[in-house]
């Protein structure tokens, strides 16, 4: 497997962490209460920390002098390989929690497989991240149950979020060419195999939360190929602003 393919495979994992981390960072100082605000920004920090580890490794592999910052800030929209789910904007707390929950369940399953990767750096990053993501999943699951089984209003808001975001979940299990190459060379994960466990775990929590599982069979896709939703451009213009305005700036 060529380094370029491994780099693309890494983007496919790391960009999810970067973009979801960016979404959560937007909430810093705007959470509904101090505790949830701190929790969401802590999770953002974990995700951005994981992103750095992946990008540092990708930069090392690329051998063209690129740095982790170039990868994070200086790609164009089509070069980001995150799924559509994580770029969806923060509408309300119930929506943020549902998006997080849908991603956390997948994220943990992915990392549990990635820790067996033949690539020892990817395996090390996964082992580290598993510990953090276990806490994320516990947090988001608890809140889905609390809001779903809460007041009439909280129930309705989370149900709307579940209905609105459900159509983005199938894309998590699509294999790109680089995913297939990575899996065949023992580096990557076959995400199609995670699907059954994923929907089982998600359904258990939704049922406990007295929420209805949507019946829709129509799913959105495209993020993994770099074809993003309209929200992505706005997100990137925030994310990239400093590096675009003051090239090579450092903190």
């Amino acid at each position, binding site marked *: 497997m060529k380094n370029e393919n491994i780099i693309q495979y890494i983007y496919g994992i790391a960009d999810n962490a970067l973009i979801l981390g960016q979404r959560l960072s937007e909430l810093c100082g705007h959470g509904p209460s101090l*505790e949830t605000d701190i929790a969401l920004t802590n999770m953002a920090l974990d995700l951005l920390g994981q992103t750095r580890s992946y990008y540092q490794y990708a930069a*090392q592999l690329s051998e063209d002098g690129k740095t982790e910052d170039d990868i994070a800030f200086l790609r164009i929209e089509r070069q980001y390989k995150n799924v559509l789910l994580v770029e969806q904007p923060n509408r309300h707390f119930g929506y943020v929690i549902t998006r997080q929950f849908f991603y956390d369940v997948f994220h943990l399953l992915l990392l549990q497989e990635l820790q067996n990767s033949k690539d020892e750096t990817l395996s090390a990053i996964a082992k580290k991240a598993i510990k953090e993501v276990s806490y994320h999943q516990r947090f988001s699951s608890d809140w889905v149950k609390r809001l779903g089984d809460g007041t009439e209003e909280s129930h309705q808001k989370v149900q709307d979020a579940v209905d609105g975001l459900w159509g983005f979940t199938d894309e998590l299990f699509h294999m790109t060419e680089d995913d297939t190459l990575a899996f065949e060379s023992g580096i990557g994960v076959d995400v199609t195999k995670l699907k059954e466990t994923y929907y089982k775990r998600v359904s258990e929590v939704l049922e406990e939360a007295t929420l209805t599982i949507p019946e829709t069979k129509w799913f959105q896709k495209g993020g993994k190929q770099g074809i993003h939703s309209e929200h992505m451009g706005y997100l990137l213009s925030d994310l990239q602003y400093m590096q675009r305005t003051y090239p090579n700036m450092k903190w």
Partner: protein
Amino acid sequence: MTVELEQHIDPNLISVLEKISDPEIPVLSIMDMGVVRSAQVIDDVVQIKITPTYSGCPAMDVIGEDIIAAFQEKNMKAKVDLVLSPAWTTDWITSRGRKALEEYGIAAPLEEEADKEALLGNKKIVKCPQCASTNTKMISQFGSTACKAMFQCEDCLEPFDYFKCLK
């Protein structure tokens, strides 16, 4: 960023490393925290490997700078690398470190199973570092830094941080 397996620390370097503290928990030295995985002098350069507690922990950059500055004072050149594997665990906090945490007002991490019960709110087992009561409740799974959760004592009413178990 590399993958490293065992802890190798040159005993001659320990006295310098013990004086460097965690910037977010100043009572804890980086040695008591267990983040120093290797320290060796190779070709007159002190080569240090540290491992992050949490991936995004911003203290790591500061710790790296502090190590370089501490050895500079001794007229030694130091180089700091980050290693990810094996991943840091709260078991690496020394008993002296746990004691320092408690005295500072942070409840030290419980064992893995007990930690789960405590964070799920099933059992009241986290001890208040102020009055030692176990009549405490969790306020939030996430606290002032990535490694802590927020608790409150229901006897003395003081809020406090609990250092989460990480294995």
